[in-house]
Every structure is written in C-alpha cells, then in structure tokens.
C-alpha cells in the first residue's frame, strides 16, 4: 500500500507542462479565451464566471508511454512492463500534468459613449508538474552497472518540477482602431508550494582498469529546491494543510510577478492575425525554503592499505560520503513561469445574413459563419521548447452554438483531433473543449488528454 502511494505521488510529481490550450485560443465566444490572449477580440458590456465553475481545465501528457503500457491488467508481469517502458523511452520523453480552476473571473466595458476599452480580472488556482524520463538513472536502478562498463550515466536526466500556485490577474484591452485590438494583463503569483530540480548535471561511469579492477568516477551536481513544504518534514509540527494552503493562496505564499500581452489585427475584413505571450514572469521563493544538494567529485578506488606505494585510502566509503555530501541549504531561489507564445492566422467565409433581426442577442463578431485557421504554440521548458502546430475549422452551427474542430501536431502525437463547443442560451455561456478525441476509444492508451469546461454569464453590447 505504501508503495502504491509512493508511486502515485511520484507519478503526480513527475508529470509536465503541456499547457497548450489550442481549442480555447481565439475561441472568442468563451470569455476564458482572454486568458490565452489578452488582446482577443471579445466584446462585452460585462460578464462574470460562475465562481469555481467558470473555468476548469486539466491536461495530462506523456510523450513516451501511456498508463496502459505500465498498468494494464493483462497478466504481464509488472516488472516486464516497467523494463519495456524504461528501455523504450528516452531522456527527451516528458510527463506532464496541468490543472486550473478559476475561483472567480469577470470583466466589464469601461463606460462612455465611444469607449472601446475593456477590463477583465480574476483569480485562478493552478497546479503544474513535469518531469523528463530519467532514463539513465532508471537503467542504473534496474540493472546496476555490471553490464554497462564504459557507459557514462548522465545524472542530468533527473529533471523534475511541480508547483501549486494561485494567480491574481487584471487585464485591459482596447480597440485601438477598427482593425486592431491590443491587450495586456498583469499577474501576481502566490506560490503555495514549489519543488524543482531542473539544473542537474553530472555523471557516473565504470571502466575496466589496470590498476584497480575498475576506474569508477562519480561527478554530481544535483540540487533539489523546495519552498512551502519544509515544515511538514518536522515531526513536531502539527500540519493544518487547509489553513496553510488558503493563507498562501491569498498572497501569503512566495510571491511573483508576471504579464501577458497580445493583439488581434484584421488586415482585411475576413483575415485575422493574432499573437500573444503568456506568463512572462517569475516567482521569488524566500519563505519556507529548503534545498538539498549532492555536489562533488569522487573516484572510487576501494581501500588502499598504507603500505601500498603512492596514495592510501583508509576508509573509501567514508571518503566518498565526505566528497559528495548531502547538504541542506536555506537560500532563496527564483523560478520562471513557463512562458507561452501563441499566434494564429484565420480566414473567415460564409457571410451570415440574418433573416430576422435579433436585436437582443446581436453578436457583432460572428459576421462569418465559418473560419479556418492555423495556430502556432511554443512554450519554454527546462530543455528544448515545446512546439505545437494546430489547424482548425470553426463553424457557427446555430445562433446559440459554436463549434471549433482542431487538428494538432506536437511531440505527444500526430493525430490529435480536438473539439470545442460553446453554447450561449440568453446570457448564459457554457463551453466544453476536449482534445485527443481519437484517444477516447481507449483513454488508458492515450499519450495526452486535455479538457476544459466552464459556465459564464455574458451581457453583450445591445445595439438599437
């Protein structure tokens, strides 16, 4: 049982950012699209999200293997499956999880006859975790080094981070002119806890030798930074997790600053260009900080008695522990948020000509019933940036129902088909977006899944 918990914690802790919200991006009938581009062409008099229900999203990705590969109840020995996963993945393979829940969210148009300026604001809670597959360390743990003489095991394969935080944001967007909308959003991050070990390096190797039996070198530059969890290690501390999380979520945690910026531009009436930068920001961790390090170099020779010519080693194992000690540090550190870049180009067609005037529900955006589009998403990670390319087709099915179908290429899969539906009945907007629909044939074999859903109340411009 204990092991199950450990592995589940590990699975949670070693999962990665794949926060590509390709269906939500530029899906401007949903207010939450403003969070992926503060300069999105979204017009309203005012709107608010139903607290805790306005934006729920979760995203799980694993580029190298699926839950089925490891946990299938198919009679194959778990150890065989574990070996297959370790030997079929590489250090480039990632595990990722991202979860967001909006606590509150709202916006209004700045009043004034000619005003084209909008304010939006809100708070959301977010959990991010990522890990690369620590291939070399896993091989060393599974097989040991006997059959790998000459192989250099890379300690830099260990690359993990996990963070829970809350984000307070205030955004502003303005129609600079008829064709151009510019938006910015400021963010305050309040980190509830953070664990990161992303700048590791070092190696272990064992070669046959003519002096000792082996030439065995260990060079280690391992560091694990944590904030917000050190005190749970203390046996005398009686944890009150709910109180701690609440306090830290509401600006009592380690604080950081960031911004989003974006624009929408119409070079022609039916051609739209957009771009945005999201989460350009950092968090300074200086409260409840604890870091663990294993740093040093040692050549392990075993013992060499004093009478040997040359150097002697009277206690090799102790020397080794002294050369690469486990140190605990309490120094502040800074983490950067994973910055995300989105851009799109969209062509609209199939102009809508309403037969009857619906003055109450007039929607000035959907002049065209259909649109096709290409999107590019880039996100910073501790190693190579994650890149995804999406094409989509958007269609207004009924007055009250919009659909967006997407096809995305990224490092997780080449057959990611997504679908978003946004319905507006009166002022009530409900949306549900999910990708990797083909994987739903058997979700346990999926390499990545994401969904978002939410409930908002939107009051649009009323024109006479």
């Amino acid at each position, binding site marked *: *049982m204990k*092991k*199950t918990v*450990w*592995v*589940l914690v590990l699975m949670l802790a070693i999962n990665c950012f794949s926060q590509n919200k390709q269906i939500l991006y530029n899906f401007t009938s949903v207010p939450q699209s403003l969070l992926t581009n503060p300069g999105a062409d979204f017009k309203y008099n005012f709107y608010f999200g139903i607290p805790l229900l306005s934006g729920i999203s979760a995203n799980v990705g694993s580029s190298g293997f699926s*839950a*089925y590969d490891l*946990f*299938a*109840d198919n009679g194959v*020995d*778990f*150890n065989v*499956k*574990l070996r297959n996963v370790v030997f079929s993945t590489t250090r480039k393979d990632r595990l990722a999880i991202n979860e967001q829940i909006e606590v509150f969210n709202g916006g209004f148009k700045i009043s004034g006859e000619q005003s084209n300026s909008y304010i939006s604001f809100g708070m959301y809670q977010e959990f991010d975790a990522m890990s690369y597959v620590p291939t070399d360390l896993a091989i*060393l*743990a*599974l*097989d*040991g*080094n*006997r059959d790998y*003489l000459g192989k250099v095991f890379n300690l830099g394969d260990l690359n993990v981070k996990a963070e829970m935080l809350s984000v307070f944001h205030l955004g502003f967007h303005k129609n600079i002119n008829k064709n151009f909308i510019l938006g910015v959003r400021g963010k305050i991050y309040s980190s509830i806890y953070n664990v990161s070990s992303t700048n590791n390096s070092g190696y272990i190797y*064992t070669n046959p030798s003519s*002096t*000792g*039996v*082996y030439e065995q070198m260990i060079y280690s530059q391992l560091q694990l930074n944590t904030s917000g969890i050190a005190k749970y290690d203390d046996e005398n501390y009686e944890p009150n997790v709910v109180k701690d999380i609440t306090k830290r979520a509401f600006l009592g945690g380690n604080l950081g600053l960031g911004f989003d910026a974006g624009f929408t531009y119409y070079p022609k009436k039916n051609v739209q260009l957009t771009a945005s930068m999201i989460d350009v920001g950092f968090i300074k961790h200086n409260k409840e900080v604890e870091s663990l390090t294993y740093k040093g170099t040692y050549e392990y*020779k*075993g*013992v*060499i*008695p*004093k*009478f*040997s*010519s040359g150097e*002697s*080693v*009277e*206690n*090799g*194992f*102790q020397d080794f522990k002294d050369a690469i000690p486990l140190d605990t540090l309490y120094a502040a550190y800074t983490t950067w948020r994973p910055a995300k870049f989105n851009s799109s180009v969209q062509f609209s067609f199939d102009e809508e000509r309403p037969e009857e005037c619906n003055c109450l529900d007039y929607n000035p955006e959907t002049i065209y019933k259909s649109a096709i589009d290409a999107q590019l998403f880039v996100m910073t990670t501790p190693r190579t940036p994650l890149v995804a390319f999406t094409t989509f087709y958007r269609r207004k*099915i*009924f007055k*009250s*129902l919009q659909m967006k179908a997407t096809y995305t290429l990224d490092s997780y899969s080449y057959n990611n088909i997504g679908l978003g*539906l946004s*319905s507006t*009945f009166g002022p009530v907007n409900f949306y549900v977006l*999910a990708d990797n*629909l083909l994987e*739903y*044939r*058997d*979700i*346990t*074999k999926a390499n990545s899944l994401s969904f978002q859903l939410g409930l908002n109340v939107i009051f649009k411009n009323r024109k006479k």
Partner: protein
Amino acid sequence: MKFRAFNRFLGILLSFFLFSCASDLDFNQVNDVKIEPVIVTNLAYFDVLANQFVTNGAEQNVIFDAPTVDVFNGSFFRQRLKKVEIFFEMENTINRGYSVDLVFLDRNNQPVHAINLAIPPYSGKVNKVTKTEVFENTQLDVLKRTTRIAFTMTMLPGAALSESSTGSLKLRSGVTAYLVVE
C-alpha cells in the same frame, strides 16, 4: 428553437462519452516491483615495491595494515544484498614468494572470515593468481558484519632481497553485489 439547439448540444456531448472506453488498469501492480540490479565496484588495491620489504639493509618479513571497509554496513545494502562475489587478483614480479592473508574483522576486531593467497617467486613469466569468493546466506551475514580488513603479507623463504631489488607485488580486488529491491 433554443431547446432544439440545447438538445443537439447535449446529444453531441453524450455520444462523445458513449464512444469512449477504458481498458482495465491495476495500479496495485506497483506492489509487485522487484528490481535486481548488479553493481560492480572496487574493494581494495595495493602495489608494494620490492625495496619496501627491505629496511636499512634488513628484510622485513611481515607487512600489515587494517583499513576500514564498511560498504556492506550501510543499511540500504544490508537489507537488500542477496549475494556478493569478491574477486582477487595478485601479480608478483618480485623474485620471492609471498603469502597474503586477508582477515575480515567485525566492529569488535574479531575475525569473521579469512582468505589466503599464496604466490610463487617471479621467474620471468606472467605470474598471477586469482580467486573468487562467493558470499550467500550465512556467509553473507558474516560479510555484512565486516567493518575492517586486515592485510598481512608474509615473505616466504627464498633468494635475499636488497634495496635495489626490482618488481612489485600487486593486488586488486573487486566486488560484484547482487541486490534485490522489492
């Protein structure tokens, strides 16, 4: 009109979930984890020159040292060691025979295991002896109690050595540790 739209919307949603399915997963399999790494590392090494056996013109017949070897004492290894092989190789290029005793001592300096390696004088040909000892079950418990190894080298009778004698006596020893982690 609005209701029809809503129904269709629900219909699309429902059909989407109806077509999804999931294979059986069993997360308790984690309890079956059993990994068996095999680790190799050095145990000991020395290289004694012929002239070290001569002090001020007089032969020194016995050389001794007892360094600390507490690798097998670490709690991680203690609990998970299943088998250990210790490999010894001695090479003698001195014109004199030697007997080398390795006595494994526990924390009270009591001998728990002894190994003897004898090697003849060098005669111009490759002069090596090797030995592999396997520690399993009760023998393994003995090894786990070891905290020091006493090395005693005794020169066997033969041609006299001087401070200008050449050659050396080398020993290298490696460990192969079979672990079971479950």
